[in-house]
């Protein structure tokens, strides 16, 4: 506790014998703190630069619209089946996890509040956000793929939905908590029942925040590989069905091609990485945009 023993008064810092050392330590600490930020920025810049430079040379209209070559050693080809697969699998996951997650959050914040059951659910959904995605993949493999003897986009969606559900619950509840109680009370005072209050007052007020949280969850799910490894199978041509036949995904293609000794396959991995990064950053940017518009709107209306 150097604070307590340090001589009082800022002016003493310059005159006391130990002052030089203290000043030097302060500068050293500040320098280390700045270095920490720079150290974290290096990999970000390196990864994005790498993906753009390597992926950029293969990326283009053909890459986005052609099928994946059947043979790994073939040069050229595209990633259309993987792009379609990623969108279908992630969309299917969102269609399951978002409504259920928002309903769960409504239970926690509007009904359960501080009851024991609600606290248990809240706690375990937080713990569940830390369960590794590969475990979700194994789980769906055991209960779905083994049981029905087929790998489909839907199985991948189920695994991703397990991953998204706790995230959507947690972020949605945080947003619902921010809805002022006066709004609910105003609605009750006008004679609305609780369902109606939630539907016409609480949810509209919370919608931008929930949408932003959901977009971040979708972005994270779209980049996941591990839950798809044993659930979606493998194809080289486009499969637009959610429930029939195997499919593929961008993340899966990157993993599959990354260790390939063939230049063509490696190039497709780089191109797929660029496509996936663009997709994920698009969702992240959309989430930020929604948040920005939302905060500007509320600050404007409360300032009026």
């Amino acid at each position, binding site marked *: 506790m150097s604070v307590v023993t340090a001589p009082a008064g800022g002016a003493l810092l310059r005159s006391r014998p130990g002052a030089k050392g203290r*000043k030097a330590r302060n500068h050293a600490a500040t320098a280390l703190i700045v270095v920490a930020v720079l150290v974290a920025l290096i990999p970000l810049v390196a990864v994005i630069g790498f993906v753009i430079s390597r992926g950029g040379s293969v990326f283009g209209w053909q890459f986005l619209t052609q099928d994946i070559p059947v043979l790994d050693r073939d040069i050229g080809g595209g990633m259309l089946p993987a792009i379609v697969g990623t969108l279908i699998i992630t969309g299917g996951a969102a269609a399951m996890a978002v409504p259920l997650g928002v309903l769960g959050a409504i239970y*926690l914040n509007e009904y359960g509040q501080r009851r024991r059951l609600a606290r248990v659910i809240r706690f375990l959904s937080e713990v569940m956000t830390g369960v590794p995605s590969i*475990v979700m993949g194994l789980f769906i493999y055991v209960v779905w793929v083994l049981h029905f003897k087929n790998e489909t986009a839907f199985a991948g969606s189920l695994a991703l939905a397990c991953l998204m559900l706790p995230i959507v619950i947690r972020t949605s509840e945080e947003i619902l908590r921010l809805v002022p109680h006066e709004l609910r009370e105003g609605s009750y005072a006008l004679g609305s029942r609780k369902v109606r209050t939630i539907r016409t007052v609480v949810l509209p007020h919370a919608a931008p925040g929930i949408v932003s949280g959901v977009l971040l969850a979708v972005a994270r799910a779209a980049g996941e590989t591990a839950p798809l490894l044993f659930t979606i199978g493998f194809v080289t041509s486009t499969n637009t069905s959610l429930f029939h036949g195997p499919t593929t995904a961008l993340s899966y293609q990157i993993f599959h091609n990354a260790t390939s000794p063939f230049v063509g396959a490696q190039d497709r991995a780089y191109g797929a990485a660029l496509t996936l990064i663009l997709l994920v950053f698009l969702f992240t940017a959309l989430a930020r945009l929604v948040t920005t518009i939302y905060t500007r709107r509320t600050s404007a209306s409360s300032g009026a």
Partner: protein
Amino acid sequence: MTTETLARPNPTPDPERSLRGATPPPGRTSDRVFQVVTLAAGLLVLVVLALIVVATASQARAWFNAEGLSSIFSSNWDPAHHHFGAFGLLYGTLLVSFIALLFAVPTSVGIALFVTEVAPRRVRRPIVYTIDLLAAVPSVVFGLWALAELIAPLSHIYQSVSSATSGVPLLGTLFANPSGSGEAFMTAGIVVAIMITPIVTAITREVFVTCPASQKEAALALGATRWEMIRGAVFPHGRSGVVSAVMIGFGRAVGETIAVALIIGSSPRLTANIFGTGDTMASIIANEFGDASGTWRSALIGLGLVLLVLTVIIGIIARTVLARADRRLGIVAR
């Protein structure tokens, strides 16, 4: 939003009491039905968690039956000869996580301090967004990047460090037998460190922000430099928050799969050579599951169960520490 402009004597009323004070009109069936539907959605979390445990455990039974407890705790993982000992993989998982935390925690605390104490107000948000962008990069892309750009230069560093320290008692063993390709425990640890930095930073930042201005101002008024203020006011205030951030980062590191699977070199073994190749529980599932069947597959699912139990225990500890810290700091239960 007229309610916002009304004068409020008590800006943060107790949510329970204020709701009870304004009881909604008598409930009808639709109210009831909706409540039950939302409750079911909430219970789904418990159901899914329970199902994960039951399903993986039922599939892992064959492994426990075939191997017995003693060989499960051996470090002999050799599918070709039907040996499925998990200890080497557990060790690999913990070693990679430890290396990752060693790099990620100081960096994260530094970034959190920069954002809360050092940086001018207008650059704070851009920095936070940039660090969050790091979290948006998919694991597989990090793996691809490390495979193409990182392992080659690292292997040179490993070689020279290894030859420089050979013969030195402890370091000699630690850095011995560097992998020629650069695929190693260390490489995986570095990449995992990059991936857990955003979450550790975010949680650390949240607790540092809650340090009362009065305490910081008091320290500065006593003549403390900024660093002394951080040590005397911010660190003691945020200690338990940092502990839980480290635990949550640890949980993420343990479960990190795809990037590790690409760059660790896939050799399950118990070794102190951190520059050598290895394997973790998550990475071996990703790499071997496609080829596995019978006891082998059962053993891999069993590893998944171990992974689940490990991360759930870490998560429970982390959340408990965090909840206690919040209560102490007067933040209502999250």
